């Protein structure tokens, strides 16, 4: 991954990310991809037939670690809005380019289906950066 100082970009260049949790794991996704966040116990997607993708199931997150899979992210994909079920949205955060890292080779090899495209260093925490488009295409397929 090119660092800002290497490619001439301003170190101050930053992007807005939505951070959310599924089980103990922290994820991040560009905020511009998120159309809406639905909070509530029972949410019915607006378009019938578009079953929400359960992120806990996709990433084989142990059920016992789930806080409450009660949050839906409505995501803008190439074929329209799709829904992703997560435990909790932590909020919006600015991520500078210098905070983003590639997946280490060993981790990247395990994620050969491309569901993660990188890592964001946020304080002492690390968020896995999710590619919703790839997730949608691998819908409900365990990694």
């Amino acid at each position, binding site marked *: 991954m090119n660092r800002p100082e290497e490619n001439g970009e301003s170190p101050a260049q930053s992007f807005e990310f939505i951070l959310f949790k*599924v*089980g*103990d*794991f922290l994820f991040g996704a560009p905020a511009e991809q998120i159309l809406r966040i639905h909070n509530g116990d029972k949410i019915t997607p607006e378009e019938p037939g578009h079953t929400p993708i359960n992120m806990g199931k996709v*990433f*084989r*997150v142990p059920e016992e670690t789930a806080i409450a899979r009660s949050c839906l992210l409505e995501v803008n994909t190439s074929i329209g809005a799709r829904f992703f079920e997560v435990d909790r949205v932590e909020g919006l955060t600015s991520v500078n380019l210098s905070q983003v*890292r*590639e*997946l*280490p*080779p*060993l*981790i*990247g*090899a*395990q*994620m*050969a289906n491309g*569901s*993660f495209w990188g*890592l964001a*260093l946020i304080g*002492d*925490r*690390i968020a*896995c950066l999710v590619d919703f488009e790839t997730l949608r295409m691998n819908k409900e397929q*365990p*990694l």
Partner: protein
Amino acid sequence: MKDKPTVLLVEDNPVSLKVIAAMLAKQGVQAATAVTGEEAVQFVKQTPCDLILMDIELPGMNGMETSREIREWESDPSSRPARGDAPHAPSTIVAMTAHEDEENRQACLNAGMNAVETKPLRPEKLKEILARMNLTAPLENNSVSSRIIGLMEKEKTSPALKKDLKSEVRHLMSFTLGKEKYALDMKYLKRVMWAKNITQVPGLPPHILGIINIRGEIISVVDMKMLLGLSHETAEKPSIMITSARGMETGLLVDSVDAIIDLPPLSIDPPMITFEKEYLDLIDGEARLDETLLIVLNYEKIMQSELMDIHKK
């Protein structure tokens, strides 16, 4: 100069023994060695010596007592060679002592020794003794010591040869997994740290624990116990060995990191312990260290194994 001088080195300290033997070899003299007075007397009875370098403080029979016994045997008519053979000349016995006082020197001479030298014996002093006795021999080109000394001389000017010599010993870092001791080549080890702040990543196989952030560098962490199919009991304070090969850094979670061990490759035997075939391929062999069995792993094979799947992408 004598054709093949017989020199006996009597010294119980293994380091001193090695050093003096090397100094003698450098002068072209191959010395026999004994670590006790009893051994020395036994040797002299079978092989008359030109020179005996005698440590004074030996376990059991000390150097003075040993010298007395050798002199008694040499003066005993029954010890002389069979009729017609030339009689043996008495050995020259040089005491090696840490005590420089006159009383000690006199006691050595009274015990039948010919000279007294202070320890540690310096190369120039040894050379002087050998020269005085006309025992210095040119290096024999085909002897192991000569070859090694020759190589050592060349080593100073040849980096490639230096590497060859060093490769004769395998530098290993030993570590503990459960009740067993394992080792990896030191050249792959960059640092050791306490295992903390491991961030789990979803969707990984059980032996890949997650990632750690070391000053902005993200490194994968592999649980060695899980990797080798060992029982998974978490140690109280586990460590991570940060390793590196071909530009890729990987953290290996182990129970504890123990010691640096240098082993000649010949001391590593093929593995005898029972491992599943998939794990057996990751093992170079095993070595006995006193009562401990050390299992030597092959880092390159581990990193290239299907368990790591690095080449899958």
